[in-house]
């Protein structure tokens, strides 16, 4: 199985003619991802890496049968690209673009929910189901097919954890980078739920960091709803106190969002917390052994 992306993924690349878009199109093709079409307004009719380019998402969807889109469009236009993909009926949208204004995301989030599309990101590294499909910018070769699911707000830290797991022989079912922005399409809880229902996934690694309250919600969800073991890693213990946002941040959540606070929440629910990326491997090994 695996979640979100697999060998049935038929991918559209929005912003395919740009520097990032064309580079990663090549990389994803090399990994074996089925890229069906690309879109760049005004550049329809060309081919990039042998992939046909269309002017609009609608055209590409009608002609080619697409179920997933990845967005490399520059920040100024990225929000429109998200709306266009949603309106064309694409059910899974992965937005790599960094720097989308937060208030734009507040509206887009609502619209996506209304239309029933799932957004991963923005400002994320994407999704990979090793051996099946790579819809993102992560280096494919560090991954290995297996039964550990990974959810992370970060990019390179995820690679670090994956790399260590692979070296020790622990493959991954799917790795999801959900993004580091204040408003993101899919939360830890959304992805945990998918992993819980996935037959390939036997254990999950959740990588969190300072800021926001997503980790707290994840901890409650794991405690109440999950049977599969979850290992966590929370970074930012030494980070400078989050640039203070007046009083409002503390008022909303009643919390400060520090790493220590988050670690404590997981520990209170007896969810194992790794001290560092290397220790994640030991903890994964332990929970998988216990299962057998």
């Amino acid at each position, binding site marked *: 199985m695996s979640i979100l992306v697999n060998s049935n993924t038929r991918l559209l690349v929005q912003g395919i003619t740009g520097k990032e878009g064309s580079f990663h199109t090549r990389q994803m093709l090399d990994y074996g991802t089925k890229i069906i079409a690309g879109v760049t307004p005004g550049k329809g009719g060309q081919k990039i890496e042998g992939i046909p380019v269309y002017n609009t998402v609608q055209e590409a969807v009608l002609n080619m049968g697409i179920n997933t889109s990845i967005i490399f469009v520059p920040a100024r236009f990225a929000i429109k690209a998200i709306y266009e993909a949603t309106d064309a009926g694409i059910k899974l949208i992965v937005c790599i673009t960094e720097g989308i*204004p*937060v208030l734009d995301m507040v509206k887009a*989030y609502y619209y996506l929910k209304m239309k029933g599309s799932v957004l991963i990101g923005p400002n994320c590294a994407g999704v990979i189901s090793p051996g099946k499909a790579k819809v993102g910018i992560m280096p494919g070769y560090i991954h290995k097919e297996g039964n550990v699911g990974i959810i992370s707000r970060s990019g390179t830290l995820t690679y670090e954890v994956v790399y260590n797991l692979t070296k020790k022989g622990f493959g991954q079912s799917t790795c999801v980078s959900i993004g580091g922005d204040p408003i993101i399409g899919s939360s830890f809880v959304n992805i945990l739920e998918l992993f819980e229902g996935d037959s390939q996934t036997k254990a999950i690694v959740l990588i969190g960091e*300072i800021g926001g309250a*997503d980790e707290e919600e994840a901890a409650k969800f794991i405690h109440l709803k999950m049977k599969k073991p979850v290992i966590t890693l929370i970074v930012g213990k030494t980070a400078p106190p989050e640039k*203070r*946002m007046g*009083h409002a941040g503390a008022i909303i*959540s009643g919390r400060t969002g520090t790493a220590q606070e988050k670690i404590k929440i997981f520990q209170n629910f007896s969810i194992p917390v790794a001290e*560092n990326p290397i220790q994640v491997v030991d903890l994964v090994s332990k929970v998988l052994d216990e299962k057998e």
Partner: protein
Amino acid sequence: MKIYEFQAYQIFIKNGIPSPWGKVAKTKEEVRKIAAKLGKPVVVKAQVQVGGRGKSGGIKIASTPEEAYEVAKSILNSKLKGTLVKKVFVQEFVSIKEEYYLGVTIDRSQKRVVIMISPFGGVDIEELVKTNPEKIYKFYVHPLLGFKSYQANKLASVITKEKNIVQGIARILSIIYRIFEEMDCSLIEINPLVVTKEGSLFALDAKIIFDDNALSRHPEISRLRDVEAEDYLEVRAKEAGISYVKIQGNIGCIVNGAGLAMATMDLIKHYRGKPANFLDVGGGANSQRVSTALDINFSDKQVKAVLVNIFGGITRCDIVAEGLFQALSKIEKKLPLVVRLSGTNEEEGRNKLKEITGILLADTMDEAARKVTEVVKN
């Protein structure tokens, strides 16, 4: 992006939020003149971009121009929570009967703009959050509907029964919400919003933070930035596309990716070292950026050794090595450098670094963190 109170005050005044008359000053003489011209008691407020300045002695009342001069003398050029005070805001003093709190921000978990109001404003608002969170009322704005005047009225009437005050607060709530949307803010706060003994409403403080992601569509806001208020190394980093925050410590860091950077700092601390900064060279870092990052670390006098931790994905290890090579060939005084390169083209990168003397190579980030803390200890 943060701005000063007097800048936020100007935005408030322009948009019709009632605030006592005020003017910004750089010298104590100017402060005396402003107070004399006004002919009334004033409040002299330090202009710094850190919170809690009232409790730290950054806000003082003066009843005469002479007193204002003396007060300004004690505040100007003093350090408030580590920040040098270069400007003060001189504002007409008003007598306070009631203090309220108003705020607008984005609630990350609800994914909505939230408007907050409390009848118990003032310096102890955060204490109130812990003891009586129910005394702070929140309203979540529907993303497509926006914030309507009837909603503003309803929200305002929760904290007071006086009709004209309700109307006044509702009007202010509507205005700050409009500013929040139009100027792409991440926070607007009025703490306190006061009712004077004469029964007038006044915003006695003004705090606005803008969404950095939206600055490109608001050139007029970008111009409000005070580069001098920021650490010059931080400004330099920003110009080069590097995220950099200096903290107290002696081990400099150069890492690609924010999460990995934080993990690296945590690991340094785990080995009883003290990271000197958070430094993320970003995705797809080129040799120029790496070179600048090294330069920033070497310019920080507190830094005794530098740890480079790169996980090459899109970033290529050979390019990072090239950047280090170039930067080191230009710098005379060198600090110990521990480098860990993994991922794309790691072999080429490591080979390049072997040509440079004095670089300690590490295979894993754990080994790198251990080595750098040992280097500093000795």
